[in-house]
């Protein structure tokens, strides 16, 4: 049985996420550590439980992108406190690494940010290259960071060809087999993804997570 104080503290961490009082999260984690709580407990029943709740709120349409992004930052701040105390063990079970960006010529960022946040909260290490990203940068960054997945976002008819460019750059570098490539963004479709031989297409950010999970399962099996 957990004592009342522990129980209350963990509940407060979750409540800080749910109530969008994100500034409080690192403070509460620190208080927990000072009170002698196990880092693993603070992680599982505090940070992870809290961010899951925010994910649920998002799915129910109760909170929006800013809450998701702020929650992810608070979560990271909490992890940064726990990490040095975990004696070399990685704090989070990172499922895999994703390099994401919006293609060259395109500065639409909101959808990409939502995908990034959902992937992060689902346990992925996400490298966000931002917007207006040339095809070669996707490839270079994925190679450099040893990512498994490249997620390419485009919102306009005249920038969709840049998604194809990413695939062609991978082929030219003889690295197409090294990465899963998923595409998405308002004007893209399943047919387009098939036409350019991407590994998958997602209409929503939740689809992006499902696709990523699928790829990693396949990797594990092979």
């Amino acid at each position, binding site marked *: 049985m957990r004592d009342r104080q522990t129980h209350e503290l963990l509940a407060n961490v979750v409540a800080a996420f749910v109530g969008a009082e994100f500034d409080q999260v690192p403070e509460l984690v620190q208080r927990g550590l000072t009170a002698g709580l196990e880092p693993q407990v603070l992680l599982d029943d505090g940070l992870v439980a809290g961010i899951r709740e925010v994910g649920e709120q998002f799915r129910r349409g109760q909170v929006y992108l*800013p809450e998701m*992004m702020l929650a992810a930052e608070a979560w990271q701040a909490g992890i940064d406190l726990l990490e040095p105390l975990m004696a070399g063990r990685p704090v989070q079970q990172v499922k895999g690494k994703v390099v994401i960006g919006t293609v060259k010529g*395109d500065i639409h960022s*909101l959808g990409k940010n*939502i995908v990034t946040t959902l992937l992060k909260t689902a346990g992925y290490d996400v490298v966000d290259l931002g917007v207006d990203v040339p095809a070669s940068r996707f490839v270079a960054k994925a190679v450099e960071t040893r990512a498994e997945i490249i997620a390419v976002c485009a919102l306009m008819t005249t920038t969709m*060809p*840049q998604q194809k460019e990413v695939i062609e750059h991978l082929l030219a570098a003889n690295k197409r087999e090294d990465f899963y490539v998923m595409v998405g963004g308002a*004007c893209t479709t399943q047919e387009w993804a098939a036409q350019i031989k991407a590994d998958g297409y997602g209409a929503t950010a939740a689809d992006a997570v499902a696709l990523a999970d699928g790829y990693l399962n396949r990797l594990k099996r092979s």
Partner: protein
Amino acid sequence: MLSNLEIYRRAATGEICSEKDYDLKRFVPAVRSLVRKYGVEYDPETPVPSDDNLADRVWEAGRELILQVGVYCVDTERIIRFEPIELDQAIAQAPREVVVGFGQFARRIPVRRPESSIAPFFSLGACGGPVSSDEVFMSLTQAYAELPYADAVASPAMTHVDGLQIVAGSPLEIEGCIRTVLMTREATRRAHRFGLGIANTVATGVRSQGHIAGNAVAAHPCDLMEVGHTADLKTDFDGMSKIAYMQRQGRTILGGTGVVIGGYAGGPAGAAISLCAYHFFAILVQRASIVHPYVSHFRFQTAANRDVIWTTSLAIQASTRHSNVPILQSGVYSAGPATGISLYEEAAMAASCVAAGGSVEVGPTASATRSDYLSPMEPLFAAEVGRSVVGMSRKDVNVLVRKMLDQYEPRLEAPPLGLRYQECFDMESRQPRAETLEHYRTARAALREMGLEFRDPPYYG
């Protein structure tokens, strides 16, 4: 009013701030606290609100928002700040009632107020919806220009130049932009309405060089050019370059002010406040003579979602009660042509906008996913409905819009794709095919049943 150069000076010398900090540490908390401070609450039961006090609070909150956070310049990573007196001067000194088009077809965009009995202005067209070929471009744009209620046309986005796919930022984009204006003008001539203005001249263009090329080579001084922004209350050198060009030429700017519900502004209340802040942004930063709000939703790709209707209608009421700069709302929809649903979406969007004091632009489906999923029917229908609600009270329009929402709201989760222009219309005669006509007749009958009295006889059929 502050000059364009002064805005640039502030962008070059203002407080340094990272973009992420501006978004998450300045903009987001400011919007949230203003929602609370001004007691702005979304009421889904009243998609078209009629509470003047609420509209005035939203306006004040929007004014306070831009004073608090300023405008972010992405290229200099600095904040452009304003003083209260500068905002008041902008509202007092902004241009009003600009003319679009020339000769016989010159049209004034009127200053309207909520429940105004002045007829709105209609910009009808593909408005950036992509088309696959020059043939579709010409027939479709001629069909738009022929619509009797079109006060201006909005051009489609070309996807190919002589069979080569246009890539943003490439030389093909320049060529595509120039052809877009030339072909749109030719379409107005074929429609025997030469002189009709082109709103948003070069929808094909993504970058300023394309827009400037299209305007410099092919546009008339009385055509409009849209200037956008990056995200919430942000500007960049690309947009500022277009403005510099347009101002030098004495041309009219359509200030696109887009807020995404579910984005940084949060829910409908925050989005409405943010849209009012954008009114000042449009006048001062974009140097707009017409404000062009386009609200979208992070889940639903339409201007006719309930949250979007409330947000836009409220913000337009707020703006038109306090400013003389006319509003041209962008009205995209989610279901494709010849599905019936798109007609109800457009009807609800147009009715709520007109009752709020705005004028209407009807464009493509919101995500503009596939080429040629466009038709003149949606813009026509929006205009017919918009004209019919002129002078009606917001309360009555609210009742009407709720009935319209009943018709389509459940279907917004998975809107049907519909048909291509060449499938739902005859490209040569530019007339609707039988099935398309049937949707139109059914929708008109349904709206009459809901209590709407059409001002005009049906245009088609």
